[in-house]
């Protein structure tokens, strides 16, 4: 059935619902991952970023920013780490990776795929966290010593996230025409 005059607020409502759904999904992944034991402190796969990537590549930067920041905020509230050092680290990483994603988006646009976005974003994420840790509460010498190892792991996990995002994007149906901006 075709509507002659669709209400003006409908696309906005749809966008809200979409952002909420993706943020909720990312929060779940974030919390499940937080429960996984990791061999090295400060290291985790960051699979919630796959959600951010998918949103970025399908719906654009503004939506990705919203999902990412919502995820960090809500996951910290649910996990009990709001305003703790861990939360500040997560927020710093989230903002840095968004900044890098925006940069890649501006420089390469559609030419860069999920992996091209995820790898530098993962490095930016880790670098920001290391910088905050070193400036705030860990001995800088120790942080610098660990940095190469953690950056290498971040690159590996970033590439993995990109490949996962690619797989997800390939399985999503084509966007319906009315959803396009």
């Amino acid at each position, binding site marked *: 059935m075709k509507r002659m005059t669709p209400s003006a607020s409908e696309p906005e409502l749809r966008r809200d619902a979409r952002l909420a759904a993706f943020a909720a999904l990312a929060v779940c992944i974030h919390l499940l991952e937080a429960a996984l034991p990791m061999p090295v*402190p400060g290291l985790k796969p960051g699979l919630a970023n796959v959600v951010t990537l998918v949103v970025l590549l399908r719906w654009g930067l503004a939506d990705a920013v919203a999902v990412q920041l919502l995820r960090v905020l809500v996951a910290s509230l649910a996990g009990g*780490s709001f305003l*703790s*050092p*861990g939360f500040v*680290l997560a927020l710093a990483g989230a903002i840095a990776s968004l900044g890098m994603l925006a940069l*890649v988006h501006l420089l*390469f646009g559609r*030419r*860069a*795929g*999920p*992996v*091209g976005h995820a*790898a*530098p974003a993962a*490095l930016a994420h880790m670098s920001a966290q290391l910088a905050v840790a070193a400036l705030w*509460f*860990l*001995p*800088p*010498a*120790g942080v*610098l*010593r660990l*940095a*190469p*190892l953690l*950056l*290498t792991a971040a*690159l590996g996990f*970033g*590439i993995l996230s*990109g*490949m996962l995002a*690619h797989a997800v994007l390939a399985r999503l149906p084509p966007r319906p025409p009315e959803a396009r901006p």
Partner: protein
Amino acid sequence: VNRWDLVIVALCALAVGASWRLLGGPGGVPHTALITTRAGERIELALARDTTRTLPGRHGPTTVEVLAGRARISDSACPQKLCVRAGWLSAAGESAACLPNGVVLRLVGDGDEAYDALSL
């Protein structure tokens, strides 16, 4: 994965490689061996000068040896000798401790070491 992705990933790998070159060295270079005893005494030995120092502990003497810019607990009158098995210390921040005797050896370098560890 297309050509641009490969270019970007290659750039990232270069950056990570550079971080190994720049930051992955032997850690901070220590200049002093700091010993604290059960009595709360603090003894600083310059790593530039080879020396040995024997300290009294609850179970008997603990001997610290400084040789060629490194330091170790070479002998200690304690049951398990974990401190001796810690071996030579060569990077700033490394430590060996004889808990029964209350003797702690730590290498100090330049740089802020306000906390040993922090749980997040």
